[in-house]
């Protein structure tokens, strides 16, 4: 018998996870710019200050480095801080505390101290976000030993990994959320008896297929699913999709096993290819056994420029569904395959996002 399918928006999953953390653990606080205002961090902290008290959910001065250091000190003294950066770009101001302090506290002092905290950062895209509101900086953080770096791509990924972070993990977690996921609705089985079991800080196999392995991050997982649907239906090409989810601790075996099966690998990341997720996953395959591959690895990411504001250039800056689809068709059928693929512009979601923020 089919049970009723539960559908939940990404931002509501965020709100639920924040609310749960405050409800279940009295030492939890949320400190971030505008977390207690009427917009509630794009709906992810709305009314939590009213419900849990202004001493636990509060606005902060605009001092990213200081605030992060304060979060670390609070964590060292028994509080679980959840911090927010309404754009990933602003976290660069906090880099010293994240990299020099949070990531090293446990190791540098011989394992005697823990810094349990969650730092949420939001990537912007479209409606003219421009060069300083659009960056995806996951590789900068994942480069550093000591940090768990996540990019939850669905409502359940948020619920599983945030609840795990707050309840069980004793170190700093960086989670990079995508602004355009916030209004997406997802099927949810979180908390149900027959819910799929994932390691909350590892990768997820979200679709099975024999022809191509797609390793994707964040919103590129959604794009990969659309592309895979199209390819299966129109061209009988079957993609296997791995949602990397954890940038720092992804499941290498899962990727290797999949590539062993398909022989084709395309990596779709939200950031630049150089020195990032695309480069790292390629390294893993090269170091394991590149003979698994039938042809070259293909990567999909942003163009190697700052993000332009004007829509005309922004459309060129991000890869579109058509490019994504064509690259896979070429990989499987070879160049000069002669197959036609429907040409769509950027997908409807991006078009439907209306600013300003």
């Amino acid at each position: 018998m089919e049970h009723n399918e539960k559908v939940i928006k990404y931002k509501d999953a965020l709100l639920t996870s924040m609310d749960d953390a405050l409800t279940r653990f009295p030492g939890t606080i949320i400190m971030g710019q505008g977390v207690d205002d009427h917009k509630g961090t794009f709906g992810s902290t709305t009314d939590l200050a009213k419900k849990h008290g202004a001493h636990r959910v509060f606005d902060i001065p605009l001092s990213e480095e200081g605030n992060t250091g304060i979060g670390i000190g609070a964590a060292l003294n028994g509080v679980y801080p959840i911090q927010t950066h309404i754009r990933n770009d602003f976290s660069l101001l906090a880099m010293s505390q994240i990299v020099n302090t949070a990531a090293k506290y446990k190791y540098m002092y011989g394992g005697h101290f823990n810094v349990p905290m969650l730092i949420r950062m939001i990537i912007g895209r479209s409606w003219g976000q421009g060069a300083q509101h659009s960056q995806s900086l996951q590789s900068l953080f994942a480069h550093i030993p000591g940090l768990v770096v996540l990019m939850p791509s669905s409502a359940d990924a948020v619920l599983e990994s945030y609840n795990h972070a707050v309840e069980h993990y004793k170190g700093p977690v960086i989670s990079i959320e995508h602004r355009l996921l916030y209004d997406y609705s997802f099927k949810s089985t979180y908390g149900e008896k027959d819910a799929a079991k994932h390691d909350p800080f590892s990768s997820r196999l979200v679709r099975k297929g024999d022809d191509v392995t797609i390793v994707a991050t964040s919103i590129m997982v959604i794009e990969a699913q659309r592309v895979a649907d199209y390819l299966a239906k129109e061209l009988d090409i079957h993609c296997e999709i791995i949602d990397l989810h954890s940038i720092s601790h992804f499941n290498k075996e899962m990727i290797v096993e999949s590539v062993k099966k398909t022989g084709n690998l395309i990596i779709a990341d939200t950031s630049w290819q150089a020195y990032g997720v695309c480069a790292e996953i390629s390294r893993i395959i090269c170091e394991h056994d590149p003979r698994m591959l039938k042809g070259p690895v293909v990567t999909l990411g942003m163009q190697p420029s700052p993000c332009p504001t004007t829509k005309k250039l922004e459309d060129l800056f991000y890869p579109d569904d058509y490019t994504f689809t064509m690259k896979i068709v070429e990989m499987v059928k070879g160049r000069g395959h002669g197959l036609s693929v429907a040409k769509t512009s950027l997908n409807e979601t991006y078009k439907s996002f209306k600013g300003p923020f």
Partner: protein
Amino acid sequence: MDALYEKLFYQSLRIRLVEEKIAEIYPSDKIQSPVHLSIGQEALAAGICNNLLVTDMVYTSYRCHAYYLAKGGDLNEMFAELYGKVTGCGKGKAGSMHLASKKVNFMGSSAVVASTISNAVGSALASKILNKNQVSVAVFGDGASEEGSYHESLNFAAAFKLPVIFVCENNGLAIHSKLEQRHAFVVHEHAKGYGVKSVYIEEGYDFAKINQVMEGIVKEVREQSIPYVVEIKTYRYKEHVGIGDDHNVPYRSKDEFEQWKQKDPLIQDAALVAKFTDEINKEIEAAVKFAEESPVPADEELLADIY
């Protein structure tokens, strides 16, 4: 001579003799870690920490030996740490610049200038939220007061009324750069702009005076949950890092060193020095022996305690 004075003298002298021992051992390369000695500045650690409870939290810069000891950190574990031994307070992974001891809430010392100031403010935030009745202390040099995060921390502590004491050890030097070249403000005056109370102590050699001033401040900070800035003039006898003297180079004068030594009780009060030296040296020798005889970390330690 009252007991309190002797206690503070003993604390200060102990720190000095420990660091002189480090300087003695250093040429042997048994200590392979950059050491930033507090010789000349011991009275601050002694006078401040004498007023703190074990539950109070202290964060410092890399010039941390004095506060580690004054807060009650274990001497054996300190020497073992300097020797890179697994019995060290940081299992040999910390070295001189990152001493910490959770047992006595000496919470950490960082090589990145000013970076622990905000951590101390965070500890104070937690103690306020969790009603812990603790005082947190951030210790930093005058150079650190130029960093943005010092100002961010001061503003936050004032806005949120947090029980934290900012201690500026003003030795007038950032490595070799003089304060006059770097500061457009006076630390204790500037704090008032944030509505933070402050005090200036000129006699940084006088542990009894520092102790007396701090007694009132710690009480006020604890009872009223407010931040406080304490600027203390002091003098660094040694070079910025290492064990050498550097009064032969022209960035500072030998005269001011001589003047400071004239006021230094650890030099002037020969009788008390004589009274305590043997006892302290016995303790130090035992700690050095402990370090010498301790094992180095096992290979597995390289990848332990990262996550």
